[in-house]
């Protein structure tokens, strides 16, 4: 028992403790800096005088009128939310045949799902932009700057991960359950709806979270296709402060807004980190 306990240790205790302390400082200092700046008056931040003496919550009240942050957050919630929900629905749909049935397009589909991860974003953004511009010119409808186009884009980018997460999860589920349902007269689609889908709830929640974050964190596509998301709103707010020609930059407000847009995301991630690590562990089991 004792050796079992000892075998776990891969570092001498002293090295481990010292290293962890250094690492914690390395992680914590920038995070605390963000929090302190968000709590400091604009005038103090501009002069670099971030200190803990004059902390105030005023930035969190003022930031809403300094930039259209509320609009950005609402837009991002709508865009990322709808695209994530759609990505999960299509992802479950795609994962089921990929995991359970055999058909000719199966392998090519799996490979292109994986391969798409290494396609640089700009190689997609440029053609998408001119495609949308072309369609706009022909049909006379506004696509660039509107919601549907960017939702379709984020949904598609969330799709590979949603599909793969559900695919892996499905392979871990025994087939007997759905086969029993089918023996009892359920169709395969019925079995998917009534037997498999409820069991897949955890995979669906995880896919939903990750797909949501795709839309929430993106800057590249948003700045060209829909520049009123929270990320681009903050980017432009920051740019305006940096170029503020003599006016006092509202860096305190900026950092408060950054904090507000980061906290829900961090909470979501940390709530689901277990699944993140589990998925990785399952992958590593096969021995790379």
């Amino acid at each position: 028992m004792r050796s079992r306990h000892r075998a776990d240790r891969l570092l001498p205790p002293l090295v481990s403790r010292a290293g962890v302390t250094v690492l914690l400082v390395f992680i914590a200092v920038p995070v605390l800096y963000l929090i302190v700046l968000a709590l400091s008056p604009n005038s103090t931040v501009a002069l670099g005088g971030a200190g803990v003496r004059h902390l105030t919550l005023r930035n969190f009240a003022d930031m809403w009128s300094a930039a259209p942050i509320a609009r950005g957050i609402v837009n991002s919630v709508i865009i990322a939310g709808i695209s994530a929900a759609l990505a999960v629905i299509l992802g479950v749909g795609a994962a089921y045949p990929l995991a359970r049935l055999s058909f000719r397009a199966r392998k090519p589909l799996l490979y292109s799902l994986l391969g798409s991860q290494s396609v640089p974003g700009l190689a997609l953004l440029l053609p998408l932009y001119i495609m949308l511009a072309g369609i706009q010119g022909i049909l006379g409808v506004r696509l660039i700057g509107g919601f549907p186009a960017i939702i379709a884009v984020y949904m598609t980018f969330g799709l590979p991960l949603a599909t793969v997460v559900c695919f892996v999860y499905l392979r871990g589920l025994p087939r007997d359950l759905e086969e029993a349902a089918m023996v009892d007269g359920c169709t395969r689609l019925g079995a998917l709806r009534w037997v498999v889908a409820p069991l897949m709830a955890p995979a669906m929640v995880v896919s939903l979270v990750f797909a949501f974050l795709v839309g929430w964190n993106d800057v590249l596509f948003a700045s060209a296709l829909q520049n009123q998301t929270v990320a681009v709103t903050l980017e432009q707010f920051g740019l305006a402060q940096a170029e503020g020609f003599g006016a006092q930059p509202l860096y305190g407000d900026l950092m408060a807004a950054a904090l507000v847009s980061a906290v829900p995301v961090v909470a979501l991630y940390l709530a689901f980190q277990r699944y993140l690590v589990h998925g990785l562990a399952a992958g590593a089991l096969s021995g790379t």
Partner: protein
Amino acid sequence: MSQPDTAAGLTAAKAGPPGAGGGIAARPRRPRRPWWPWWPRRPRRREPAVWLVAPGTLFFALIVGIPLVIVVWTSFLRIGSGNIASWATAPFAGLGNYETGLTGPNVLGVSVLESVWISVKFSVLATVASTPIAFFAALSVYHSFRGRALLRSVYLLPYVIPGFVVALLAQLAFHDNSGAVDRLLAALHIAPVSTFWLIGPNAFWAMTFTEVWEVWPFIYLLLLAGLQAIPRDQLEAATVDGAGWWARLRYVVIPQLKGIYALAFALSTLFHFGNFTLPYIMFGNTRPAATVTLPVNIYYIAFNGFDFGIASATAVFNVLLLAVPAAVYLWVVRFRPARRAAA
């Protein structure tokens, strides 16, 4: 387009027994074909559930497949600000876009080939610098102790803060004179209080440092997963045989982490290479030449210079450049356990 965590799920795809997912368990036997040849063959019955894959595939084709074809096409066309909407009829430019695009000066005054070099340096350096941090972090939370779950969460913190928030914070932290970095270095008498991190050659190091701070947990996650997959008996056996921590590390752990580290190296480098958010936002108003990575350069060619032909050519070049590591990645992640592991 992707977040590093995407790779997490994708890596996971390798799990599972070989051949799982292929073949239906009990397909009804097809009736024997009659000896006379003109009998109309019964169409093979398709499982209707196969069509569930169609909507996802359709969107994938529309938003990834077709654009990839179009970008190759437009890379041979002359498309300026005047004819973006009618690009289909733009004049043919041959390979001219590739020639001027790669070597010629452009909006930011940095040629695409220079940007490639900046991006390669940036992504490889960031990965290499992240490695020891990630490796130590993974080792430090392997054994069980009180507060391990909390420590694991804290390790993830830099990675889960949105990239645009980190970039904005970095801009303020590296701000000349008033930023935390300048003040800290000046207080420690390491550098003058006005080092100019956001302009000139220093900007590259500020950017790389920020990237390391932000993305090292990705490698940590993969290494931790790899560590947890090492059979515990091996560590116990080694301990019984008198192996100390260093021997366990050297002869049991490191050999078995090599594979997953190779994967982590490739993926992490790929993601650093594609990071648009950090250089774009961190240097929003200064845009020093040393930080014009390939994605930023292409973005400016397209949306500030409005030269979509040249931008397409450089984007195609970017795809080709990443095709080799991508092919290696696909070969490693083959949806079935590696042969070596099975043997």
